[in-house]
């Protein structure tokens, strides 16, 4: 097998929100950067509109990688240039103040989440990525109905803030924005870093960080075939100054553990699992029109966030109950359905380890919601079902195993409220993953310090959601980017000072 060698000041593993932001800052500061991405680079024109082909290209393992144990929960992860930002809806939330305070006081992260630096980073990112509130004209039938439900039930609904100021409402965030309105990393910070001299190597699967006497000197892995994903060459990229691992809360701890790091690496895995409720309306909803996600109801005190989520027919059809005649009747009127989901700020902690076998992501993720988490899940399903009826739905599909697949009155929602839900009864998906290389002042209870440098090493940093000591209860992309921005800026400054001193 041939060997590919390269070298740069900074080697960044992963091109999602964290890695791309670090590359944008470091390359912008004139540093020599190489970005390594496990997936392919998908040009907008190459991204298919059909979900089957789009997911096969851009999603890690077609989203079939699940948590282990008695309740396997699928995990949504992007595997392409841009990572999850290339498949999500570009929802922007600043780090909630209560979370910032907790990180400050309980985890000793004053330097990292210092308010002014963080606000400056948020401001810069919002300016550069054209962040704006979703216009009501883009709510579509799905969002309009959720807004109506909020009005009827007195819930604090609001337009989502997104990095898609030029959104045309094609409802194709998942397949790849056809107009490049969504400022995902593949169309924003990565091209910008490349213009500033950064290099991008795709289809590069990194197995480990090369360590010499406690110092990270590079990374090793393989280049893979884009179709078979089999190795075609060995890859070794050396770092003159630092290695930054930004491979996600699942892959980052795997790389670190394979590099010989232990302690808290892979511990404290957290997530925002969620599930969805579908409603059928007499009047057409037309989910294909409007922003994929445009309206939300943040309920922080209940640890829930309700959202609209327009689905293409490929993903809506399996959510419609039945098979045969009943299903066919529903398929013929797919424009009459609305779908809303919630994400739950669960208290459960899990762990991530390198998989011995069978882990498509190379990771074994152990995670199980607690009883209190399941009470919140039940509350989310009940709330969404009530909202559907408040918005005028004739029929609601709460998606709870062991209970009627379709309910037709609010009274039937009460039956769900009385039930004790087990994880096995609901189809949850984990889309926001955190905490497996958590930041903290205490090296025994954390993996990285306030500069996101790995404790006890030199030249090794982690910049992705795995450094979050807790989950957030809101969409994490903006917080990941801001922390990476702050840490990479300090790294660039230190690196420049070092160069001047030398």
């Amino acid at each position: 097998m041939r060997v590919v060698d390269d070298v740069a000041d900074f080697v960044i593993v992963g091109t999602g929100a964290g890695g791309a932001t670090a590359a944008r800052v470091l390359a912008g500061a004139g540093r020599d950067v190489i970005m390594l991405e496990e997936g392919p680079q998908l040009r907008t024109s190459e991204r298919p509109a059909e979900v089957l082909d789009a997911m096969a290209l851009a999603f890690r393992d077609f989203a079939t990688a699940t948590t282990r144990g008695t309740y396997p929960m699928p995990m949504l992860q992007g595997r392409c240039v841009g990572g999850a930002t290339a498949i999500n809806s570009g929802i922007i939330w600043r780090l909630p103040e209560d979370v910032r305070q907790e990180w400050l006081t309980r985890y000793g992260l004053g330097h990292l989440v210092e308010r002014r630096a963080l606000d400056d980073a948020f401001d810069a990112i919002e300016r550069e990525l054209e962040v704006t509130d979703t216009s009501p004209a883009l709510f579509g039938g799905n969002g309009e109905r959720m807004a109506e439900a909020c009005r009827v039930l007195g819930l604090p609904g609001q337009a989502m803030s997104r990095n898609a100021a030029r959104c045309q409402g094609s409802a194709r965030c998942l397949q790849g924005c056809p107009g490049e309105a969504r400022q995902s990393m593949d169309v924003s910070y990565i091209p910008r870093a490349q213009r500033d001299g950064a290099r991008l190597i795709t289809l590069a699967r990194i197995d480990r960080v090369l360590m010499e006497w406690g110092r990270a000197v590079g990374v090793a892995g393989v280049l893979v075939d884009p179709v078979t994903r089999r190795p075609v060459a060995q890859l070794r990229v050396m770092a003159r100054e630092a290695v930054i691992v930004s491979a996600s809360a699942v892959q980052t701890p795997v790389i670190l553990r394979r590099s010989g790091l232990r302690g808290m690496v892979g511990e404290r895995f957290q997530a925002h699992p969620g599930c969805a409720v579908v409603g059928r309306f007499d009047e057409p909803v037309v989910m294909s029109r409007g922003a994929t996600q445009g309206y939300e109801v943040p309920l922080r005190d209940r640890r829930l966030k309700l959202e609209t989520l327009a689905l293409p027919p490929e993903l809506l059809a399996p959510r419609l109950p039945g098979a045969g005649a009943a299903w066919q009747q529903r398929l013929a009127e797919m424009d009459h359905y609305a779908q809303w989901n919630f994400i739950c700020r669960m208290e459960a902690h899990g762990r991530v380890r390198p998989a011995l076998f069978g882990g498509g992501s190379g990771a074994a993720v152990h995670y199980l919601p607690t009883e209190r988490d399941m009470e919140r899940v039940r509350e989310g399903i009940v709330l969404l079902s009530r909202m559907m009826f408040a918005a005028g739905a004739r029929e609601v599909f709460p998606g709870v195993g062991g209970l009627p697949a379709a309910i037709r009155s609010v009274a039937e929602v009460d039956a769900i409220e009385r039930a004790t839900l087990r994880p096995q009864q609901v189809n949850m998906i984990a889309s926001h993953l955190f905490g497996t290389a958590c930041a903290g002042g205490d090296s025994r209870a954390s993996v990285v310090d306030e500069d996101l440098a790995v404790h006890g090493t030199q030249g090794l940093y982690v910049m992705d959601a795995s450094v979050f000591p807790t989950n957030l209860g809101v969409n994490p992309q903006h917080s990941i980017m801001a922390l990476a921005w702050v840490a990479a800026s300090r790294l660039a400054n230190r690196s420049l000072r070092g160069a001047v001193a030398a």
Partner: protein
Amino acid sequence: MTMTAIERRWLSVVLPSFLDPTAGGFGLDPGEVDFERGALTMYDASSLLGRVGMRASLLFVMLSPLFILGRLASFASLGSTERSALLARICSHRHFALRGMGILLKLAASMAMFRVASVRDRTNHDRRPMAAPARRRVTLPLRLIPAIGAA
């Protein structure tokens, strides 16, 4: 880990059975959807565990008349209405693992079906495309119309 020939044949038996051609309404034309190809695209992109899950689901559904109905028969020997009724039962089964197997195959069937534009059109899902984006107003040069009778 590729699917065997018999498993691929099972795909062509099980996936179209989510629809009942005798039921009327939404249906497929013969050969309109290549279920096998669609499912194999999904299979090839899946994790190892995902692939094992898909194969186990197929095997279970083929043997489900025995497990669910208590009849010594294979899925292929059932009529179309019985097949879809059986799949509906599996997809709403109280046991998570069985329900998950059914939904996985239903997802594969849906992925294959709605990849085809003509099938997608029949759902009305994509109707009424978004209005064209607002275009910049262009000021056209005014041409003065000479008054009638002017020289």
